[in-house]
């Protein structure tokens, strides 16, 4: 059975290409959500095995989405991979990562093979 991944990022082009890549690699079913305000609702209806979450987004940022997911028991356990293009290392350590708890943070531009490896680890094929 394909593993379900929810991609939350306001960059429509980026999510479209990431989806194509993940699906091409086999074994993934990917849903895109470009509006971070809808991310939690999308997670609730899609019930993904993992969520890939951008940090800097208008409306709610990645940290906000993550915090909200934590408050919902059925979603709190879903592993989250944060993506960030923030170049300022202080922002990375003080801001997003602290809010994201101990979740994984990957830098943007995304190294596809690294992301695939991470996903393989947190949601292994059954």
């Amino acid at each position, binding site marked *: 059975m394909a593993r379900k991944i929810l991609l939350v990022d306001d960059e429509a082009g980026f999510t479209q290409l990431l989806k*194509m890549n993940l699906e091409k690699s086999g074994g993934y079913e990917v849903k895109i959500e470009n509006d971070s305000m809808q991310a939690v609702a999308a997670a609730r209806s899609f019930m993904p095995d993992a969520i890939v979450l951008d940090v800097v987004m208008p409306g709610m940022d990645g940290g906000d989405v993550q915090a909200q997911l934590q408050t919902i028991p059925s979603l709190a356990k879903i592993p989250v991979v944060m993506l960030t293009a923030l170049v300022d290392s202080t922002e990375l350590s003080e801001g997003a990562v602290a809010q994201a708890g101990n979740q994984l943070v990957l830098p943007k531009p995304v190294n596809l093979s690294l992301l695939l490896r991470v996903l393989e680890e947190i949601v292994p094929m059954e």
Partner: protein
Amino acid sequence: MEEHSIVESVLDNLPVAVFAKDATDGFRFILWNKKQEEVTTIRASKALGKADHDLFSQDSADYFRSVDEAVIKRGKLMKVPEEIIETKNGREVHLRTVKIPVHDKETGRLLVVGISEDITEQVKSLEQLERLNRHLVATNKELQETQMQLIQAEKLESIGRLAAGVAHEVKNPLALLLLGVDYLSEGIDPDDPNIATILKQMRDAVDRADRIVRGLVDFSSQRSLSREATRLSLIIEEVLLLVKHELTRSNTQVTVEIEKDLPFVYLDMSKFEQVLINLIINAVHAMSKVENRRIKIKARSESLDEVIKNEGARKREVFRTGDQVVILEIIDNGCGIAAGDAGRLFDPFFTTKATGLGTGLGLSVARRIVELHGGELTLRNRSLNRGAIARLILPTKLETGKVTPPINSSKEIDIPKEKLSP
């Protein structure tokens, strides 16, 4: 009381030098009044009966003689606007002289009568005035150059502040390109329906990164003020691209309302972008303690008469009535302007921001740039809601608006921007 003829008394009390030479007797002096004594520092007793060559230097005497001969030959009055004689003590005296040919009926002699006005002081003050003027022009030019340097320095400052955001905006298209490359490098299946989408996305990403980088390079260039007919919407679009990251990060919602068919405005793109970036970043900072941060950018065209009716007569000094102007407003819902700060907002180095967040030059430079465009920049609190309005009034013609001194060649229109070479 000495005995003098009326003529002698009059001559000696005239404020001008008067002399006469006998052309029929080697141009020897037969008349030499008091003022002539003063001007030449030669006594009448020494001069009478002598010719120019006995009294003045060879060059001066030659010149005087040539004029005298010409006066006699033409039988007409001649004006010498300025001649210089050097006195015995080495002082230069500037004279304006009229020479008149006179036929003395009683004696049958031909005379040259000269009347000279001492214009030395006039010439000296004129020279001094010219020197002062040259100095003033040089100082003014220096001031304008300094001002352009200040504008540039402030701009580099904001580029520094924008750099992280711009880098982020460039990284997004790069991320997308990398994903495209990843997809394609797995082997290309000609029947794969995704390929067309991927290639289009990659091309768009290159365009986008190029636009952002080009925008930053254009913005950072130091050119003399060069105004071109521009659509305001275009500048606003470019600026929003450069500050996108700041807006996203601060979670600020921006709405743009531009009236349809807004007239062109004559702007220096790079310098005007600087103004808008300053105003938008200011608005973002002013909203740091506010939820629901909102910036509204509105532009409309109005006749100046309406502006005066609504705003009072103060605008008259800047624009002429009947002018069509474009009004651009940047409205935020931030903390507004504190009552005590209103008078100092545009003072250089005045800032309410924490150390390191602002130089205090932004608004003063912004206002100067707007004034260089013949426009006006004001800031005030909103009347009903919280927040501030930055309002720009811009002329829609090149020649209207306040006359500002040209900076280098300030009205180079339609000069194409330098092309970026790869």
